[in-house]
């Protein structure tokens, strides 16, 4: 062994894989970007895998196929928590390290979980809206029932409003299911029933597109607050058409995810004072790492464009 070589270096061919569902969408790209960066800095190889569909069964199939390639570790976004228990446990038993990100499978044997805090995000969105409205007025929410992190953001948003801003009144809720057209129609209708509607919150950016357009066309002053960003939302934020967005810090998610994964794959690097030897578990066990979030407003929106970011970094995103 080379005495100069850092412990934080991979063997040749040591592979780390990121696995997601709906793999074609933008959200994952900044995560993978930093996952990759950390890997390169440590001489490791990476792969981006997943299924283009929104289907847990298909995602599990890809997860198991990744496993057939015997990678050193997998960073997975489990679409649903419990369905992943068995696959993750099987991976760990085979000696493949697993960490989860952005969604967890708490009952599995994964080593670590990196995420932004959906509850804090929802609350932060509520604070931003309530501040802008002087703590008084009517608001509505658009939901995507069934998707856990979205549901959490919405619940936290409403809870924060009820708790801290008694004069903010929830007047309507509808399901937009990430569909801009449904969001557009819903906001138009809500505006009919509640002409004084002052704000609407939705937990993802696709709906925001439609909601903001409806707000513009009704010519009413409806503040559209959302979470996550894309180029269009950023443009609208800059133009004042969307009030703001809460964006999780995806880069840190990817970077910390890789570090955790590497550590889990090289447990000999650490030796914590606990019972890991007795219980035979991986010493690299972190229940929860918060990667933080940012409130995106007209002032800072420019820093969140993916294309510009890619250009600045000179990489090709998930395609390498």
């Amino acid at each position, binding site marked *: 062994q080379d005495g100069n070589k850092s412990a934080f270096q991979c063997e040749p061919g040591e592979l780390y894989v990121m696995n997601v569902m709906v793999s*074609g*969408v*933008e959200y994952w*790209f900044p995560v993978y970007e930093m996952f990759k960066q950390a890997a390169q800095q440590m001489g490791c190889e990476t792969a981006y895998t997943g299924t*283009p569909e929104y289907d847990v069964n298909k995602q599990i199939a890809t997860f198991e196929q990744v496993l057939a390639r015997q990678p050193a570790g997998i960073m997975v976004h489990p679409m649903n928590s419990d369905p992943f228990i068995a696959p993750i446990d099987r991976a760990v038993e085979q000696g493949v390290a697993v960490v989860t990100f952005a969604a967890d499978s708490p009952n599995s044997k994964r080593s670590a979980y990196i995420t932004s805090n959906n509850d804090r995000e929802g609350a932060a969105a509520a604070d931003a809206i309530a501040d802008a409205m002087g703590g008084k007025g009517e608001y509505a929410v658009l*939901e995507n*029932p069934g998707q856990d992190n979205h549901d959490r953001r919405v619940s936290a948003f409403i809870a924060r409003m009820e708790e801290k801003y008694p004069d903010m009144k929830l007047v*309507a*809720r*509808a*399901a937009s299911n*990430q*569909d*801009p*057209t449904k969001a*557009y*129609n*819903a906001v*138009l*209708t*809500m*505006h*009919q*029933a509640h002409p004084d509607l002052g704000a609407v919150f939705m937990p993802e*950016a*696709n709906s925001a*597109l*439609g909601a903001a*357009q409806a707000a*513009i*066309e009704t010519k009413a002053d409806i503040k559209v607050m959302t979470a996550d960003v*894309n*180029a*269009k*939302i*950023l*443009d*609208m934020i800059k*133009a004042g058409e969307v009030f703001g967005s809460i964006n999780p810090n995806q880069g840190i998610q990817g970077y910390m995810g890789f570090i955790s994964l590497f550590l889990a794959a090289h447990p000999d690097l650490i030796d914590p004072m606990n019972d890991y030897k007795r219980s035979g578990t991986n010493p690299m066990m972190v229940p929860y790492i918060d990667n933080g979030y940012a409130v995106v407003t007209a002032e800072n929106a420019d820093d969140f464009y*993916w*294309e510009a970011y890619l250009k600045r970094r000179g990489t090709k*995103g998930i395609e390498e």
Partner: protein
Amino acid sequence: MTSAKALKTETKSETNKPEATAVQNGVHNRMLGIFKAREAGLVAIILIICIAMSFASPYFLTWQNFRAMLLSFSIEGIVVVGMTILLIVGGIDLSVGSVVCLAMVIGGKLFLMGLDPWSASLIAVLACGFIGYLMGQCVTRIGLHFFIVSLAFMVIARGLSLLITKGTPQSLFSLPPSFKFIGQGDIAGMPFVIILFFGIVVFFDLLLRHSTLFRKVYYTGSNEKAALFSGIKTKRIKIVCSTLCGLLSGVAGVVYMARFGAATPQFGIGMELSVIAAAVIGGASLNGGAGTIFGAVLGAALLSLVTSSLILLDVPVYWQDIIRGLILLVAVSADHLLNKRKRSTSTKS
């Protein structure tokens, strides 16, 4: 999908026929007015819901609300027109949602690459028409079923959208106002989208009712072999309908692009089902040979009315789907039974 037809006929054969009143469904009657039995039934159902709603919600009977409801289905309505024509010829198109999305994406991408938005849109619409044309070719040349061909193209078109956008929504913030007008502008208080939609509806409704070309669409859909034996080039007719459906999806995509000023690769997922539902509620037959544009538009209006009403009434989110499904079921049943009654009294059935 033979069953509906068989059932329909079965019910018919059970009773018998006084011959005199046969004029009902004929050519003559078609000329008499725009309201045929089926459409009148739908209008009735819609009116009932409207009246109930106007009691339930004070906001319902406002121009603003009607404008909002019209806006909410008028772009999808353009797709419904194309789908209805395709259903009449005996086809079906599951790819419309993906194709609408593809139109947005192609138009958006070309615009971002520096083309003027009008040419970009034209190319996008033509590309969608070409997809429809390809589907028609697969169906008529190879002899596959529209269902499976359009399913394949649904996946392909979605993949193309992803490929072109690399998965990220394209911001078309810089579209010129003259172009955005298509999707967002008003003419004398009436949104241009609605005017465009009604224009398309009236145009195709008249064509379907009165033009020779579109009569052949009915013939082909009703019995392809009979049409063929009458010298009608049924393959060509099917290709025309499928191309038209693609073109109209493309137009809808471009209008969406102008409305939202964006092109998102996830747009339109699941649209095919609501579009088909609208056409079928409006009287289009999944076996081909029957249907009208006007009916289909009423079907779309009904679906949209129900969705808006549920929101206006503050029905809890978890109940909305259940109620929507039940109303869909009740509407088609009522309509079907109403028409059966009418048939059994007026024609023989």
